[in-house]
């Protein structure tokens, strides 16, 4: 029975990683850059929701929607101010800028909200669901995380395969020049991807803090790095890859904690990444793309 309960916690943690990883992978797909500030957008989302709920006593749903709006605005602003001027710059310059934005967000949060941890309330309540005659208990946050992940996956798949904007996004990911020649505004499309990724980051931040209630200005960095790992694991640039990578990573982490060592669980996660990349350098669902000259 403990195996089943670990599996469920793994899938639920993995669902949160998957939602974050989507942001990394979609941005990479279209802008060919690693947005290392993405993890900190999660933290801003969690703080926004926390303050709206605790200070203004707004209902959960309002807090979540408002946090999504804050993060969308933040994501689009970051792209516009920090990354857009570097569209033609070498990849290394963009990478360093992204790390800079990450530190900026962490320190701005430190200034605004201090380093005192905030205790985040569970947005899904605390009544566990008991199954199999009380032997298996599932937290409502875990269920909510898994459900959110499924809904987001279905919605994104529909968006990219059936809408005009979603197809334009795929076209831009493949060939920006050709997309422009079709009349697609590449800048608007990139902004839209940042908007979607950041709104998802808000959801992930709230779910994460609901499950692990300590909120500090660095809350987003470790899950951010793990979700990035998940995106690479699944094949960066691939939406289903981010999903599979995230969930597998969550399961590996929880099983590592439960059966091997709590202290080593993070090391195990990254060890698995190294092994996967040695065997399949493009990730589980990644395609080996030849660099065009």
């Amino acid at each position, binding site marked *: 029975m403990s195996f089943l309960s670990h599996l469920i916690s793994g899938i639920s943690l993995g669902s949160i990683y998957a939602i974050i990883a989507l942001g990394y992978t979609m941005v990479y797909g279209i802008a060919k850059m690693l947005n290392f500030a993405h993890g900190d957008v999660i933290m801003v989302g969690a703080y926004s929701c926390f303050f709206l709920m605790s200070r203004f006593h707004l209902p959960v749903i309002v807090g979540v929607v408002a946090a999504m709006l804050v993060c969308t605005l933040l994501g689009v602003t970051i792209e516009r101010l920090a990354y857009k001027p570097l569209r033609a710059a070498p990849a290394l310059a963009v990478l360093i800028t992204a790390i800079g934005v990450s530190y900026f967000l962490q320190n701005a949060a430190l200034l605004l909200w201090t380093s005192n941890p905030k205790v985040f309330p569970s947005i899904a309540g605390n009544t566990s669901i008991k199954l199999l005659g009380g032997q298996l208990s599932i937290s409502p946050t875990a269920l909510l995380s898994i459900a959110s992940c499924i809904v987001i996956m279905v919605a994104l798949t529909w968006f990219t395969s059936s809408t*005009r904007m979603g*197809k*334009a996004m*795929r*076209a831009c990911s*493949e*060939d920006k*020049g*050709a*997309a*422009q*020649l*079709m*009349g*697609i*505004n*590449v800048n608007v499309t990139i902004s839209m991807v940042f908007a979607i990724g950041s709104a998802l980051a808000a959801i992930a931040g709230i779910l994460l803090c609901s499950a692990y209630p300590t909120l500090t200005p660095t809350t987003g960095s470790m899950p951010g790095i793990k979700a990035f790992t998940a995106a690479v694991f699944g094949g960066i640039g691939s939406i289903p890859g981010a999903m599979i990578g995230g969930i597998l990573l969550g399961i590996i982490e929880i099983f590592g904690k439960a059966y091997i060592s709590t202290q080593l669980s993070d090391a195990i996660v990254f060890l698995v990444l190294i092994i996967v990349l040695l065997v399949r350098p493009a990730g589980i669902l990644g395609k080996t793309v030849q660099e065009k000259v």
Partner: protein
Amino acid sequence: MLTVTDLNVYYGAIHAVKGISLEVNEGEIVTLIGANGAGKSTTLQTISGLLRPRTGTVTFLGEPITNLPAHKRVERGLAQVPEGRRIFLSMTVAENLEMGAYSQRGADTASGMEQVFTLFPRLQERRKQIAGTLSGGEQQMLAMGRSLMSRPKLLMLDEPSMGLAPILVEQIFSTIVEMNRAGTTILLVEQNAQMALSVAGRAYVLETGQIVMQGNARELSGNEEVKKAYLGG
């Protein structure tokens, strides 16, 4: 219809296009011929907006478009079939055509697709197929069909014969003539000078970024220098 005046384009320090001026009138087929690296593609990409000139102007339908972003030029009726086709390989044939109609907000995509399918029946058979699995000739047809979806007034084609078997080249060129008869003005860039001169009304000959000769296509194909340099004797 299209007027290019004294265009200068640089790649970093390399002066790729040196003061080119050219004109395309409504209903014409005009070709730019010249060797590899003469600046033909650079000129075309500057007209379509993918590259920016350092100096010079591009005027389309009486309005200056030199500083207009590429995606806005498509809305005005200026389309380009890029060199190397550059179709969206991971999307289906139908999705590629839909992308071609992106600038036609709210227009009837289905009727545009019907027209493309009449021109290229092969694409209709393959419309649900992933574009990356098409043959080279089919990919060229798709690239042309995709550009036609924006209902262009002026269609620019960059090396449509590249990498195709002679029989397919014939087919592609007869389609170009057909499109022109149906009312689309054509600006064609080609290394296959013989083919290009046989369908074009007028031609410009480019050498190292400059226009060295221009005039009636038939006269140019009879010109001794052109024969020697571009027509294999």
